[in-house]
């Protein structure tokens, strides 16, 4: 891809300390454990994986809402890894976040107008035509009635609240948005609307997006490229079509085999790979390849050597024995 790289994440780790009273060893939860990827302008990168694999933490760490433990985040050519609050503030207009839970994302004591105008106020931006006009045209853009300017969040449905959250995120025309499972709290018909809205906004404004989700069909629909995470590590990353049709990593295969088919006949013949065992604890992940405890192809090498991401066919895979 020749397009400009807007975000470059290298070896990003985020470890949360946990207190262990018995032995004084410092235990850490390795929520994100060395992920690397580049994001191009206008591109959507889907981030998938099961619950607890570190998707959300990855998203928040990239935005520096939590401090990374190590690694580097380069945003528009600037290494922002070590940026403190003050230096981040001006950059915050360029990078935004959309939340999973629309019920917790809006302050119940503020009107919609106040919520959506907060970015202008905080960043000290004076849009042409006044803040109120800007807010109302944003509301129109995300499909809300601008007359509802003075209403409170509790008067809106989940889908509408998510639109409010989106309006707030795009208010300052950011170049990069982390969408943290923006549709998983909504019902299916609303999901489609919100996804299409995001798709349109992204195309119109040329926003780059990291789209975190665990619904594989949603990710397939919206993403240009997809990264599959497991226990804080990227297992496989590649263009959506390649990853969905010719994946190489056993975990990706297992994950994709779990997607139900809408056609009953192909659903019957669908081959499912059922993984045995549970997700290992991120406090004490398996040595070598973190997937070795549940992989049907695991060999001795997988238990000792950490596989690196290597280009294979259309995707990059971290596996000693890719398919």
């Amino acid at each position: 891809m020749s397009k400009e790289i807007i975000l470059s994440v290298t070896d990003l780790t985020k470890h949360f300390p946990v207190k262990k009273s018995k032995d004084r060893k410092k235990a850490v939860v390795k929520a994100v454990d060395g992920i690397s990827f580049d994001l191009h302008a206008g591109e959507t990168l889907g981030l998938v994986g099961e619950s607890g694999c570190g998707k959300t933490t990855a998203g928040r760490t990239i935005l520096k809402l939590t401090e990374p433990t190590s690694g580097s985040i380069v945003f528009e050519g600037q290494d922002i890894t070590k940026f403190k609050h003050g230096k981040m503030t001006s950059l915050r207009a360029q990078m935004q976040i959309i939340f999973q839970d629309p019920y917790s994302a809006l302050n119940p004591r503020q009107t919609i107008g106040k919520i959506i105008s907060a970015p202008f106020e905080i960043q000290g931006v004076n849009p042409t035509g006044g803040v109120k006009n800007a807010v109302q045209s944003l509301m129109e853009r995300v499909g809300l009635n601008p007359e509802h300017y003075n209403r409170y969040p509790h008067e809106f449905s989940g889908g509408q609240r998510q639109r409010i959250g989106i309006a707030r995120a795009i208010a300052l025309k950011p170049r990069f948005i982390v969408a943290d499972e923006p549709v998983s709290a909504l019902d299916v018909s609303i999901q489609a609307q919100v996804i299409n809205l995001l798709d349109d906004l992204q195309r119109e404004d040329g926003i780059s997006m990291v789209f975190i989700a665990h619904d594989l069909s949603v990710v397939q629909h919206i993403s240009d490229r997809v990264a599959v995470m497991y226990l804080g590590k990227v297992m496989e990353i590649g263009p959506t079509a390649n990853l969905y049709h010719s994946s190489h990593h056993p975990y990706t295969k297992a994950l994709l085999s779990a997607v139900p088919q809408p056609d009953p006949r192909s659903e019957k013949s669908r081959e499912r790979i059922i993984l045995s065992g549970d997700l290992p604890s991120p406090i004490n992940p398996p040595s070598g390849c973190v997937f070795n405890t549940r992989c049907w192809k695991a060999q001795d090498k997988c238990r000792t050597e950490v596989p690196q991401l290597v280009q294979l066919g259309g995707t990059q895979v971290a596996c000693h024995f890719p398919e």
Partner: protein
Amino acid sequence: MTTSVETSRDSEAGIQGRSPRQIAWSRFKRNKVGVIAAVISITLLSLSLFAPIVCKILGIDPDTLNLDVLNTSGIPDLPNGGISADHPLGLIPGTGRDLLAQLLYGSRMSFMVAILTTFTSLTIGLFVGIIGGYFRGRVDNSIGRFTDFILAFPAFFMIVALSEPVVKRIESTGIAQGNSARIIFLVFFLSFFGWPGFSRLIRSQILSLRERDFVTAAEAMGAKRSRVILKELLPNVWAPVIVVASLSLPGYLAAEAVFSFLGLGVQPPASTWGILLSNASRYVTVMPSFFLITAGSLVIVVLAFNLVGDALRDALDPRADR
């Protein structure tokens, strides 16, 4: 097309959402007990506030000694403690002062102590609670241990023991004399032992609020800490603050009465509920009406304020307006 947009913009003032406050108010209005209690509380509070005017209208005076209507042992001639058109609640035995006037004037002192104490302990509790809940970690830990330390004190005995020396000290510094010094002492120590309760409540609220996504959203927009605290968090703790304030006010009213009863509060001839009660307790066998009226009025006030607090808590239920 443009005109239709224009007109819709114009009519937008007509579409006004109901704010959480309006919803709480409409819920409060539906609670009959709460409304009645609120009317009683406000009536009593304003009666006490406008005591001089009320007394003038009723033609009673708190300081006049009506010795002519007392018998030789100091008990009013008329039955039921001398209740008559001139003295609606009767007279105080011994001095012959008008009981209603004394109650009205006395309640001013009691309300003043209770309101001042609630206000100061709530202000301190709000401040400390927000700091602890927002900054968490070491800050929160040290604040938490300090509040535990204060809560572990036997507050009642401390106040009893410190009363005399501290009041003397206040008087010797010349800040205030006599009853003012005693009021300062009471408000100070009741607040000193009262704020940890508030601070714990506020801290717990802030702890859960600051994990909500709207706080992260504000941080993601580059908001300063002061903005997050003042604009995002603070408006969300007003509801519990109002509730605990209305519930603790009657508690402090009663506390003031207790300390005055024990002779540690305001001294006669000034009067408060506690002083009147302690006076009445000496006449409880010969003139029960004095005790019943004084204690009854305190019970009514405390009960009314508590019921208002309960109604407010129901109306401001945080789960009902997220």
